[in-house]
């Protein structure tokens, strides 16, 4: 079974196309291990910052039909303790790790990247797109092609590890931003971070449900947005893509693949089904391959991607 799902990604052979994305069940080495045991091919750390962050006060999540809002506020133990969890993971597991980092300026990004460069992690991901720390940090970096370029350029000089840029879906044109990332030397893109942000209100207490008022949308309802952006970027930009957003079944993984993703993140679905969702998803992919007479996942063709005018 495993062979059929192997994927080549930035020079590495990955056992399974399923990625545990940043921020979902990744605060401890144990949950990273649990993800691999259950069938993930790569795991991502929580977005790490220079200093530890307790994150926003609760409520930090709110559910609605088709998805959830979260405003965790980038809680994490800081880069040093965060990397310790990664090293502990690596003592038992060989599966590749993506370390996600978050900062608000080039200097901090460089400092973080340097630390990751010295770690056993295989990949570095830049979270340029967290929509939940607006009050603190303003509009996500990923809204500006210029800033995206500068940060990636600087980070690339600090590390020889492949760099993945995680972009925001909350822009009216993704291509200029993806192009900037490519020009600056990004090795891959992760699409998408959470959508919106959105807000929900408790009408009896007349308060926003989230303490942070606003939170990023994830879950099944954002899949169409992810697919659209992946398809668009894949048609025009020649970078591998980690497709993330609303995936909860093997058929969703194939949909992401056809849109242009090389690997597929499964985040919020872990909430609905626990980590053994990965096992289920892998079985469903195999089922599809068999029904459609493909030997390998890599044999499944992409959508015919007519290059569209801008």
């Amino acid at each position, binding site marked *: 079974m495993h062979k059929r799902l192997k994927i080549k990604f930035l020079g590495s052979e990955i056992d399974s196309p399923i990625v545990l994305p940043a921020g979902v069940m990744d605060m401890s080495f144990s949950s990273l291990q649990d993800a691999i045991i259950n069938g993930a091919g790569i795991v991502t750390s929580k977005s790490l910052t220079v200093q530890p962050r*307790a994150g926003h006060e609760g409520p930090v999540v709110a559910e609605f039909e088709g998805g959830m809002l979260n405003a965790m506020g980038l809680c994490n133990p800081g880069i040093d303790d965060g990397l310790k969890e990664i090293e502990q993971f690596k003592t038992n597991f060989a599966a590749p790790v993506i370390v996600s980092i978050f900062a608000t300026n080039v200097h901090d990004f460089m400092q973080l990247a340097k630390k990751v460069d010295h770690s056993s992690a295989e990949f570095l991901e830049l979270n340029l797109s967290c929509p939940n720390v607006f009050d603190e940090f303003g509009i996500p970096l990923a809204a500006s092609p210029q800033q995206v370029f500068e940060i990636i350029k600087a980070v690339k000089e600090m590390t020889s590890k492949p760099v993945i840029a995680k972009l925001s879906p909350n822009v009216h044109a993704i291509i200029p931003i993806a192009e900037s990332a490519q020009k600056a030397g990004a090795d891959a893109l992760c699409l998408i971070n959470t959508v919106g942000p959105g807000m929900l209100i408790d009408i009896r*207490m007349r308060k926003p449900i989230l303490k942070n008022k606003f939170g990023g949308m994830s879950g099944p309802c954002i899949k169409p947005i992810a697919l659209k952006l992946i398809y668009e970027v894949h048609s025009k930009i020649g970078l591998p893509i980690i497709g993330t957003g609303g995936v909860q079944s093997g058929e969703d993984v194939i949909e992401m693949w056809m849109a242009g993703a090389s690997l597929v993140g499964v*985040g919020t679905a872990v909430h609905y089904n626990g980590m053994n969702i990965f096992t289920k998803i892998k079985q469903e992919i195999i089922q599809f391959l068999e029904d459609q007479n493909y030997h390998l996942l890599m044999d499944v063709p992409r959508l015919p991607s007519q290059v569209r005018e801008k």
Partner: protein
Amino acid sequence: MIKRLTLKIARIETETKNVKTFHFSHKLEAEPGQFIMVTDYENGEKPFSLSICELDHFAITVKRIGDFTNQLFQKKCGDYLSIRGPYGSSFFVSKKKVLLVGGGCAVPTLYFLSKRLLSNNADVTLINGAKTKDELIFVDKFHSLFIQEYFVTDDGSFGEKATSVQKAEEILKTDNFSFVYASGPELMLFALKDKLKKINYEFLLERYMKCAIGVCGSCTIDPLGIRMCVEGPVLNREKIEKLTEFGHYHRDASGKRIGF
């Protein structure tokens, strides 16, 4: 998707100087050991075990300890609170002779459990322990149930002078129990574990909860990586024996490890 409920506090009962029970008139379908997340949208959102869960009402019993609980203690009957849940795993409800070991403000969840055990015809023995008389809770409530009770205090100010663990060790030697349930401070549970070589048990463990829906990873426990908000807070012997974290450390809001 669990719907959020915004409910008026129906009644507030003062248990001790620092412990209050908040009652809500609403039917909540829950099992003993499960918890709810409670918020007033001002001071954060925190987990509390259900202490009472009847056909038409439920309650939580809260110890004043920090910001959130201090604010909660300011609330009046008729004030709104918003809750979501119930969440998490629950105690196995036995039909046999069982021992319940409780420490301090973690005892009330054993009251909800006792009620379910009794309606399942189990034979229930309870050790209700605290540092001192003033911190013993639910004494009257347990008293009205048909169970065998032992009260212990560290300073002997009420009941026997002993810890819950000492008392448990003693009873387990003399009497024949088929299952032990425990809820209390982690170091108490950790000590108790050593006394339970030959008997099956379930403990309720507390870890830092943020999402409570199994997505953020704040509450995982090493090295299993299981989510204490979904697969916990009640864990069985098999899982507890595999834990390297239990009794040694837990993680705070940022995910940093904090020793006990």
